[in-house]
């Protein structure tokens, strides 16, 4: 791929197990993510892919295992702490703030970087006023980057599905994350929208060096854009390696690629 250099391991997941009552969503899963890489997680429906992302940024707390992020070791993350440490994400089912405009949704993405006190905000003076402007500039950069200038002021609820997905990406990018978790960013899109989304993801990775962990069902896309792929099936890891390695792994072929996709 491009000139970006894949760095050291920044996220290491060790022996993660997650259960919901009797349902074993994840069983003893270990893998790592290197700085600046595009890491894909694939697997059939219900394999535990979304659960894995939820463990990474602390929405779910695994019963067993360890998470090491930037050298810091812990059993579980807390979502707002993960955000502070530079992890942003999008959701499989769009999770935009539907009562707010596109601009406000994206501005909300910068919330961890805004420090004006509540009283300063109430009188809209000094730091509060300055911050709103500074962050608006940043947000406009993201808006330009994702080419959504024309819908800035639109309530997100009125947007078509493909654009909503793009706004959700914008909200995540506004946080200037070092690691971006994308849960099926291209699901339900037409070919053209998928191509746009692919281009944006690669541009983010390329221009900002953002590490990307991505779940995707479209095998063509996965093989094209990812550096390494983890394959899950029934909550277990059955493959891990470069797209080529994974493609030729017999267990993966029978479990996943074998079924019509």
């Amino acid at each position, binding site marked *: 791929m491009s000139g970006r250099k894949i760095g050291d391991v920044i996220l290491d997941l060790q022996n993660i197990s997650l259960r919901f009552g009797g349902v074993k969503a994840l069983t003893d899963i270990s893998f790592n993510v290197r700085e600046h890489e595009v890491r894909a997680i694939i697997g059939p429906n219900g394999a535990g892919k979304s659960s894995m992302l939820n463990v990474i940024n602390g929405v779910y707390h695994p019963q067993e295992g360890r998470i090491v992020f930037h050298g810091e070791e812990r059993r579980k993350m807390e979502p707002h702490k993960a*955000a502070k440490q530079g992890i*942003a*994400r999008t959701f499989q089912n769009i*999770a935009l703030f539907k*009562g707010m405009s596109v601009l406000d949704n994206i501005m*909300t993405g910068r919330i961890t970087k805004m420090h004006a006190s509540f009283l300063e905000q109430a*009188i*809209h003076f000094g730091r509060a006023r300055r911050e709103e402007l500074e962050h608006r500039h940043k947000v406009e950069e993201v808006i330009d980057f994702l080419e959504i200038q024309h819908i800035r002021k639109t309530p997100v609820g009125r947007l078509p599905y493909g654009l909503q997905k793009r706004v959700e990406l914008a*909200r995540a990018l506004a946080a200037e994350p070092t690691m971006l978790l994308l849960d099926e960013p291209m699901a339900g899109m037409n070919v053209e929208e998928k191509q746009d989304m692919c281009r944006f993801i690669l541009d983010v990775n390329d221009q900002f060096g953002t590490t990307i962990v991505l779940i995707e069902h479209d095998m063509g896309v996965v093989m094209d854009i990812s550096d390494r792929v983890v394959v899950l099936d029934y909550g277990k890891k059955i493959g891990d390696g470069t797209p080529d390695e994974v493609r030729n792994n017999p267990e993966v072929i029978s479990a996943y690629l074998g079924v019509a996709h």
Partner: protein
Amino acid sequence: MLYREAGQFKTSYAADQQIFPIRQDRIGILIILAIAFFAVPMLFSEYWLKAILIPFLIFSLAALGLNILTGYAGQLSLGSAAFMAVGAFASYNFMLRVDGMPILLAFIGGGLAAAAVGIAFGLPSLRIKGFYLAVATLAAQFFIVWLLTKVGWFSNYSSSGVITAQDMEILGYRFVTPEAKYLLVLAIVVVLALLAKNMVRSSVGRAWMAVRDMDVAAEVIGIRIMHTKLLAFAVSSFYCGVAGALYAFAYIGTVEPEGFSLDLSFKILFMIIIGGVGSISGAFLGAAFIVLLPIALDVIVQQWLAGVLPPSVSSNLQLIVFGGLIIFFLIVEPHGLARLWQIGKEKLRLWPFPH
């Protein structure tokens, strides 16, 4: 305020982020304020100021408080009247027990006391939502009124907890005439409304709406849910508390805890449903509507329908109309009058060429 904002292109983000970005809105607000401060006290009779405009402003403030909590932060509450009671009784006690207490400080103290109580009763919101939270705030409503009646200290041991608000005096000027009281209430409400408008267009307001719309995503973005919800309870209760203090000091003078009953909580809830959930102007529209509707209905019944309607109907007409309107707004236009007004403006802007 019907106009088109054609030709107003923003050349900087600062211009786009003003409190009222459209020039006509700014002018409109200034005109309304000028009328409210200068024309109204001269044009309206004492009766109107005392019996209609002052309560309208006070209810607007309470509705604004509830709208911050319910409309912006998405936490349903049936305890608004109880928080008003806390504000009224706390301000009364500050005046009573602190020598030389300035009245404005007593109002702020009343608001802060209500905020503290609001935070305490907001704690269940960290665990429960929607209907169950409404029931928890209902408990607050009954408990607070009961406590204020039961513990004599709050009302300085008067019978059945009645308090008589002290005189309002600022820098030697005593607010006794309806005009003076109206202007004092108006000034307080305008300042608090502007502060609220600033809050909802800043990051705290976005955090409230984010928690309302999608709490998991809000948390993942880095919003601390607990902090955000409790802040909404605090600010909301502060506004209700100040409204309660004004209700006692500037409106009825003598109140008992029972005056802040569940009925009043519901009335405030109806105001935001009719006026517009999640809108500052909606609080004012809703309060105006609910204060004026009974008067308008009385006039209609007496002037045109006298003898036409059976007395059983005309005496319940208010309730019937309220019920109908609330069902209408809940089903047809959940964003209330504020949204209808906006739609009307959009339609007129295109008129007469709808395409």
